[in-house]
């Protein structure tokens, strides 16, 4: 029982110590010390999470820690799941980070290695672990804001190198704080109605609230949480901030921070508010489905490797939220078993996504550090130069494409099963929503395959298309070790998901659903009334391995005599040796998909043909520009920003610069307020 407080105290102590170490230590050795301490934070926090998943619970109250309200913490299995995930990611990424900041002259190492960034990193790691422990509104918001601020500072780490970093950080700062405002308002309304701000009081107070108020609280908090999770339409910060942050930070943000948006949604929606009417969950599912398809479509168009991964995060969070929404829908219809199944699928996908996305961002960072290049069009050929990174990226990509034997397949299979069996819930709503949900999952899985074939095939295979990629060197050992840990985690999740079984079950139960124990032992088993389905990943892998062996043996045997494999020139159509410039780039790979989804994506194309002066038929130069802007962002944010800018411009007339006028404003403002109060009362 005492594991959790001890582990949490250790994590906190280490986090603060790491921040101090980052501040005071000289450049030499700073990275190592901070990395080790941050890894300790991850291990300690992860231990607390695992203990909570194992069935321990712990709560405490520290009155003096926060003014007025005091701090409340409580750890149950749901918190435990998110803490365990964050802990594992933090520990592996911290190891990776030590290698990342080591050595001068490598691209981007100085940003994360700076005094400020190294001081903030352990605090960010700590906040990721502590947010799920909060058990009162004040504590939660406090930790939430610490997480937002520390991550903002880390996003800014490389601001000297690229102006784009500043713009991205500005977007992130504004959106995360708008989210905070929404959360503040939502929780304020809730706490005022419930008559207390601890989560216990909120839980007790929900019964007396009108449906309108509950709906308002849900919508406000859900908007804030889905924005943190990077869901469309409040996703605009994610594809900017995640690529511009140093890769270790991107990994933490994409694999641990966005999860907390999901955590918040589950905690408030299911635990505190105790579920709600169908429209809540339909809204959530709509956002999830939209994010899944739109996110992966944008990823398919992206040729910036980290932007691609960021949009893929948006997609995966969309799938998770789709599952969570379905759980809410089933729970509303009274089918708790099915709700538990959908929620288990969603939570399992959170875990799987964290594992492979941290790995993918790590590998992307490895490429970025070696080449200084994130543009897939200019990469290529890294398989030969950086074999370990390429192999690890392939492991992560296998998870991301949701095909066996990757870990993503397990959770998407469970998600699909919960949707397909969801038709057991009577009603036209489920009958019309669930087929669409299945279609969304299928389309996003299909597009994800195209996306990661592009990322791996164009970025790592073939030949180098840029000088930087041709001169790339494999990353330092510690980076490879950090990524190797994550790859091992992916493999474990893919082959023996049963290890998670009990913990997942408890996390689902913590929200209040009776589980069906879908994941146990060697495989997955869905058992509901009248339906059943099983999947054993180990069997699939073994079958594939046996088949591979059989095919190889047969080919050997059929060849009669052993022949050495020889090398030959590529087929060149008689036109001379093909140069790397002739190879397909990421942009050309995505072109058919861009055409197919032309109406959705609205790409901007610009062809500029300059003929030579003597004849209009002889072309001197052709310039082609292709850009796929984020259309939702364009349509939704631009008008709002324009209106705000116009309002700001017109308000400038009020500020003439004369102190008298300003004093007058103060006077009139006060008088108006008093008048309103007098009349109003």
């Amino acid at each position, binding site marked *: 029982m005492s594991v959790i407080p001890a582990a949490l105290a250790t994590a906190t102590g280490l986090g603060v110590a790491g921040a101090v170490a980052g501040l005071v230590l000289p450049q030499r050795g700073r990275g190592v010390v901070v990395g080790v301490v941050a890894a300790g934070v991850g291990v300690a926090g992860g231990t607390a999470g695992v203990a909570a998943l194992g069935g321990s619970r712990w709560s405490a109250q520290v009155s003096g820690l926060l003014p007025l309200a005091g701090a409340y913490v409580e750890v149950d299995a749901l918190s435990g799941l998110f803490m365990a995930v964050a802990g594992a990611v933090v520990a592996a990424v911290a190891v990776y980070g030590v290698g990342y900041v080591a050595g001068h002259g490598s691209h981007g190492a100085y940003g994360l290695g700076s005094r400020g960034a190294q001081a903030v990193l352990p605090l960010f790691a700590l906040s990721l672990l502590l947010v799920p422990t909060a058990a009162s509104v004040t504590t939660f918001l406090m930790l939430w804001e610490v997480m937002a601020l520390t991550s903002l500072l880390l996003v800014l780490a490389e601001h000297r190198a690229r102006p784009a970093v500043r713009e991205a950080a500005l977007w992130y700062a504004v959106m995360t704080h708008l989210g905070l405002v929404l959360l503040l308002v939502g929780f304020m309304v809730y706490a005022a109605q419930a008559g207390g701000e601890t989560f216990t009081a909120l839980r007790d107070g929900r019964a007396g609230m009108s449906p309108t108020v509950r709906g308002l609280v849900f919508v406000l908090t859900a908007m804030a949480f889905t924005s943190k999770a990077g869901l469309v339409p409040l996703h605009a910060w994610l594809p900017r901030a995640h690529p511009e942050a140093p890769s270790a930070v991107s990994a933490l943000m994409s694999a641990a921070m966005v999860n907390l948006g999901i955590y918040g949604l589950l905690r408030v929606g299911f635990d505190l508010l105790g579920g709600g009417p169908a429209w809540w969950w339909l809204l959530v599912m709509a956002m999830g489905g939209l994010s899944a398809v739109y996110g992966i479509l944008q990823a398919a168009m992206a040729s910036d490797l980290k932007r691609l991964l960021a949009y893929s995060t948006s997609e995966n969070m969309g799938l998770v939220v789709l599952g969570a929404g379905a759980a809410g829908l089933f729970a509303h219809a009274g089918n708790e078993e099915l709700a538990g199944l959908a929620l288990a699928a969603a939570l399992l996908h959170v875990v799987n996504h964290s594992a492979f996305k941290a790995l993918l961002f790590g590998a992307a960072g490895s490429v970025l550090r070696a080449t200084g290049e994130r543009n897939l069009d200019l990469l290529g*050929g890294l*398989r*030969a130069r950086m074999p370990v990174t390429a192999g690890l990226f392939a492991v992560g990509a296998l998870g991301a*494409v949701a*095909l*066996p034997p990757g870990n993503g397949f397990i959770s998407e*299979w469970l998600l*699909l*099963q919960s949707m*397909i069996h969801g*038709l057991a819930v009577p009603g036209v709503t489920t009958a*019309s929503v669930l*087929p669409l949900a*299945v*279609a969304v999952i*299928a*389309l996003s*899985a*299909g597009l994800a*395959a*195209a996306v990661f*074939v592009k990322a791996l*095939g*164009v970025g790592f*295979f*073939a*030949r180098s298309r840029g000088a930087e990629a041709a001169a790339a060197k494999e990353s330092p050992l510690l980076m490879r070790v950090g990524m190797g840990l994550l790859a091992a985690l992916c493999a474990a999740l893919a082959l023996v998901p049963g290890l998670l079984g009990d913990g997942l079950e408890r996390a689902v139960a913590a929200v209040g659903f009776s589980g069906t124990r879908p994941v146990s032992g060697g495989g997955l088993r869905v058992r509901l009334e*009248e*339906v*059943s*389905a*099983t*999947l054993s990943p180990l*069997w*699939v892998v073994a079958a*594939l391995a046996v*088949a591979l062996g*059989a*095919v190889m043996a047969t*080919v050997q045997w*059929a060849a*009669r005599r052993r022949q*050495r*494999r*020889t*090398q*030959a020139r*590529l*087929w060149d159509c008689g036109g001379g040796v*093909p140069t790397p410039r*002739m*190879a*397909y780039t990421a942009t*050309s*790979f*995505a*072109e*058919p*998909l861009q055409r*197919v989804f032309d109406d959705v994506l609205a790409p901007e194309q610009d062809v500029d043909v300059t003929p030579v002066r003597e004849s209009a038929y002889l072309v001197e130069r052709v310039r082609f520009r292709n850009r796929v802007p984020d259309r939702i962002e364009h349509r939704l944010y631009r008008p709002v920003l324009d209106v705000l800018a116009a309002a700001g411009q017109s308000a400038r007339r009020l500020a003439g610069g004369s102190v008298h006028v300003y004093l007058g404003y103060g006077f009139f403002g006060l008088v108006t307020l008093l008048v309103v109060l007098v009349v109003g009362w």
Partner: protein
Amino acid sequence: MNAVGYAAIALQVGAVVVGAPLLTGLMRQTRARLEGRAGAGVVQPWRDTRKLLRKEPISPVGTGPAFRWAPLLLVATALVLAVLVPLVSTDTPVRGRADLIVVVALLALGTLALALAGLDTGTAFGGMGASREMTIAALVEPTILMAVFALSIPAGSTNLPVIVAGAADQPARLTSPAGLLAIAALAVAVLAESGRLPVDNPSTHLELTMVHEAMVLEYAGPDLALVEFGAQLRLAVLLGLLASLFAPWGIATSGSLVAVLLALLLVVLKVAVLGMALAAAEVFWAKLRLFRVPELLAGSFLLALLAVTASYFLGGE
């Protein structure tokens, strides 16, 4: 039951492995005859395979493990499918593993491996083929899974033997609107997955129209034999799957060896008829433009969605 079950699997895999090239040969022969040519004979694909397997293995300069392993993985996935899909018996030792979603995913895994190999060559053709193949694969996925959904509703499971056995028990399921719509949708998806007309033309080598062939252009010798064999296996398994799902009559549902042998004979017949019908139809079809393919697939997706809706709303009666 167990011994017969294992025998059923062995027979099924044997039939698929031996029969897949013959099926392709039969389709080519049918087509040749309909076009007024003599044709090379049904056994020609086997002769090609033997010839290619004995040649010296060659890798193009600059390619890596992805290029080398993709053909092996393609054939391996197809073999696992040949074990999983219930063609002759629904009562086999692997009946609990034959989940339809897993089958679809394994098909996609083979496609993906070849696409990566195409990109690994670093030529324009390889990339072009991979790009087109993945585009089509991405768009087929919703159709297939939606058809899976439609099929699993009456059976209450995505488990293939359960679906097939259920349909063999109650043939009315197949003639219901949902069943018919699902057949149509899945048939289009199968055409796209196996790279047949009108989605892709397996006998073209024109760069404007190549999809699958562009991807595997750099393969030669034993590797090429595997790629071709893999494609033939996939076609045979997919046609067999169609036959099992929509004409399950005769499939062995009990553990008697006679029933299994009869079922084997029947499924070979069914697949041969399906293959010949497809070959005959292909004589009259032209390949669709690449950018018209999404329209075909969207149409088939719509059919599948209708099938799901129909099976839900009409299922209660």
